């Protein structure tokens, strides 16, 4: 379990970045403990709000003793509210949350794959992998160019960066998984790190497996608490003992081994799950 803190955090800046907003938060109390893959949960709505639940965002960057950063899309009413906030406003945040990406103990070839704002946590990860001596390829995809994030920044860090868009407005026309096999082969990748929509993660896990690379996938399940107390954020994951359990993505994830998640069975209770309904119960 991460050692999360609930703190008041002032907005240092909030600026558009393509289709997204780039939020920088003053958070000296937690910045030093952030690892790539951690997330932050932000309370939304202010005085008299009807929105009880926090919104979860991958931490994009952490500056020691100072700040953490987030890249987000104004989507439903909570993120719309957040997008309206101005520098100087105090937010109530909890961070760092979740289990981060696991790093290799030896320098190995790594590919980092991300879709849309899923790129947010990848720069920090690429940096750490480079420091460990890994060779790092980055693959970034999105529907359209304005939904790409972190292309320039990745180019400054990674050895090779490949970009895909569904409409060809930037980089290769197509999906990240179209270019992933080549990337894996180029760096003889042992580890593939992924963050993005579920169908993408599923495809990444599969391609990685076929090419004998371990994948680490950061999932995005709806969360009520983000701290492990409510059991809303579960998905079927196979444990070391081979048993499938409904596992909390907020504390046991959001990063999971791609070969352990039963991607096709997400949003179901597979019949062989630990505690799955038998005839009598429900």
């Amino acid at each position, binding site marked *: *379990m991460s*050692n*999360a*803190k*609930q703190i008041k955090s002032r907005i240092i800046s909030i600026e558009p970045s393509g289709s997204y907003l780039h939020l920088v938060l003053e958070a000296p109390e937690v910045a030093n403990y952030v690892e790539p893959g951690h997330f932050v949960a932000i309370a939304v709505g202010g005085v008299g709000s*009807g*929105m*009880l*639940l*926090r919104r979860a965002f991958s931490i994009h960057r952490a500056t020691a003793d100072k700040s953490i950063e987030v890249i987000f899309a104004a989507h439903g009413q909570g993120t719309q509210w957040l997008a309206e906030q101005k520098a100087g406003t105090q937010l*109530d945040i*909890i961070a760092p949350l979740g289990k*981060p*990406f*696991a*790093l*290799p*103990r030896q320098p*190995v070839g790594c590919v980092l794959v991300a879709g849309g704002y899923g790129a947010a946590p990848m720069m920090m990860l690429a940096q750490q992998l480079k420091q460990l001596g890994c060779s790092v390829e980055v693959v970034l995809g999105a529907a359209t160019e304005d939904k790409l994030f972190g292309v320039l920044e990745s180019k400054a860090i990674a050895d090779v960066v490949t970009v895909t868009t569904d409409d060809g407005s930037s980089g290769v026309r197509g999906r990240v998984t179209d270019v992933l096999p080549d990337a894996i082969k180029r760096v003889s990748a*042992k*580890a593939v790190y992924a963050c993005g929509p579920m169908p993408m993660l599923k495809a990444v896990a599969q391609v990685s497996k076929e090419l004998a690379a*371990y994948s*680490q996938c950061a999932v995005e*399940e*709806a969360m*009520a*608490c983000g*701290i*492990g*107390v*409510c*059991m*809303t*954020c*579960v*998905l079927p*994951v196979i*444990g*070391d003992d081979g048993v499938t*359990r409904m*596992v909390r993505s907020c*504390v*046991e*994830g959001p*990063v*999971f*081994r791609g070969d*352990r998640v039963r991607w096709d069975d*997400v*949003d*179901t*209770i597979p019949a062989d*799950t*630990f*505690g*799955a*309904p038998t005839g*009598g*119960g*429900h």
Partner: protein
Amino acid sequence: MSDLETPDQEIPARKMPARKIPDVSSSIDLTTSLGSLQLQAPTATASGCAAAGRELAQFGDVRTLGAVVTKSIMKNPRSGRPTPRMAETPSGMLNSIGLQGPGIEAFLEKDLSWLTENGVTTIVSIAGNNVDEFGELANRLKDVPGIAALEVNISCPNVESRGQVFACNPFSAASVIETVRREWTSSAPILAKLSPDVTDIVEIAQSVVEAGVDGVSMINTLLGMVIDLDRMKPMLGGRTGGLSGPAIRPVAVRAVYQVHAALPQLPILGMGGIRTGHDALEFIAAGASAVSIGTVVFGDPGAPWRIADELGAELAKRGFTKLTDAIGAAHER
């Protein structure tokens, strides 16, 4: 690549920090009781909203809470319902967790042991698919040390009665309680957890009192539904779900008020959308002896401690020196 740490491992048991005496800055006496159970503080967690307390330890000292009420445990392991399991709603949320849990044996070994070792006041919530399962659970738990009270979650479906919720029928409710009472030889009190989804909650309260409860916990969630208009079907995997949070608070306060009016001697653990000390005092004034904090914990994990402090301040502001003097104060006498 066995040299990658596996991220999907068990959560390590967390070491508790040195015990901190709660800082209710006033001199208000916030101790209270639920029948024979003395509580050092008036706020407990609500079942299903704090797991077995461990995860909350990073936000406060769980030993200083009135009690941790554990997630309802069943006899056997249970995977719960398919996701999506929640939907945010105006000032509330809907959940269909479906009582996911490890079963009673794993609960005793991993969860209750942690609570007991750390000296946490623990109220164990139990649920069954039928009357016998409730009895078996009570029997299994009766000699286990470290259980301050038993909360019997009768607001769950009775598999033997076409899924009708026990708490929605005075006879089913009573038969669960009678069975638990028979098996439960411990002196720790039994609380029945009531559902608001009934025509007359006083009738249900009366029936469980006659069946032998020492107190009631109220209210559980209201049955609700959100429709996902993109998939054109109910949003939740379980189709319907339980509505909780401040949205339902007026219903909860009304229920507590009605039951206290009818059964003034019956200890009540009040809950339903409590967000502030002011809210908590509404429940106390309506007739609750202590309160549970549920959904609000999801947005504010420090809430059970904060609300106890605020409750002290609200009492002080109104000239009370003891919480117990405020119990039922909103009733005409």
